[in-house]
């Protein structure tokens, strides 16, 4: 597996460029290896010459999260029982219960942010980083990158994992609760998701896709 990619460096000394985050003007310069150019006003890394060292890691974490996402959705997270009656709970059970009680917007919100958005985020990140890691030119990678950007803040599985823990604590006061394997899968997916967000280098992906087009 190649660990370096040749990004097109079309920069030249002294050209005016702008910071993508705060739009401050700054002077461009040709970077040596392992150098990076930071915005003097907001500290954003405008460009760097350590292209995508974490991209392979991002790919691995995104794929791992995708794999653990399947059992996280198919196994019950916890079982709650009162006086001999028990009730299993999957992620989707909550969505269905909210929907049945007449709170369709809430059900849709939970469905979107705990199931749909994480899945599509992870899928598009692994698709985009596969491009880079395998030095491929898969179709629609640009669209996948935009999808990943749009969904990044809607990927709420870590928040969901916290909510699971709180709910167990809360249910203890009402009846008997037991953890089920699904909760571990949810936790694993949440951890992998957070690692993916940390590792995924959006700028490098953008540059690479521009370069191969």
């Amino acid at each position, binding site marked *: 597996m190649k660990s370096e990619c040749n990004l097109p460096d079309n920069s030249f000394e002294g050209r005016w460029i702008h910071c993508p985050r705060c739009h401050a003007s700054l002077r461009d310069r040709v970077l040596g290896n392992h150098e990076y150019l930071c915005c003097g006003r907001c500290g954003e890394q405008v460009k760097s010459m350590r292209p995508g060292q974490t991209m392979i890691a991002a790919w691995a974490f995104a794929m791992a999260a995708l794999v653990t996402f399947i059992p996280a959705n198919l196994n019950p997270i916890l079982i709650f029982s009162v006086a001999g009656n028990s009730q299993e709970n999957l992620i989707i059970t909550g969505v269905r219960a909210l929907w049945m009680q007449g709170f369709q917007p809430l059900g849709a919100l939970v469905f979107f942010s705990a199931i749909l958005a994480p899945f599509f985020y992870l899928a598009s990140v692994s698709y985009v980083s596969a491009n880079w890691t395998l030095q491929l030119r898969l179709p629609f990678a640009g669209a996948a990158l935009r999808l990943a950007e749009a969904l990044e803040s809607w990927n709420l599985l870590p928040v969901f994992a916290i*909510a699971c823990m709180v709910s167990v604590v809360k*249910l203890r006061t009402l009846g008997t609760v037991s953890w089920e394997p699904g909760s571990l899968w949810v936790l694993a997916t949440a951890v992998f998701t957070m690692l993916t967000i940390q590792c995924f280098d959006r700028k490098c992906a953008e540059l690479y896709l521009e370069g191969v087009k």
Partner: protein
Amino acid sequence: MTDHLKVKLSRALTAAGIILYIPANFLPVMTITLTGQVESLTVMGGVFELYETGLVPVAAVVFLASVVVPVVKLVSLSWLLGLHGSEVNQSRRMKVHLFLIRIGTWAMVDIFLLSILVAVGQLGILASVQAEAGALFFAAMIICTLYAADIYKTHMIWQQPMPNST
């Protein structure tokens, strides 16, 4: 969409968030029925109940996520948008805005918590959990603040004030 329109939209969303905050906190979020006892809980009530059962760390997490985060977001969004176009505290405003975007989604803990509780509370008379209207207002408030923080971009803090803008 022009930047001017974005600022207006962001202001409108923040105002909507402030208005929605009131019913979100005063209406009950859920009703728990346990062996005949009926109990309605607001957001604050849920935190209080956790605190009283002696689970201080968990209560603190929920308190931070569902009480502190929305208030901080609404207050600092109004501050950011109120000072839009002026040259006061620009770099501090930028830091606040980046922080807002990072903490933005944590208020969703309450909605997820509700979804899990509603899911397990389907044991009929023995134990049932029913979602209440407060949850809708709460979710709407979160979405308003999320989008308000998202539409207002960091670079707009540094814009020169336009002669005819407010």
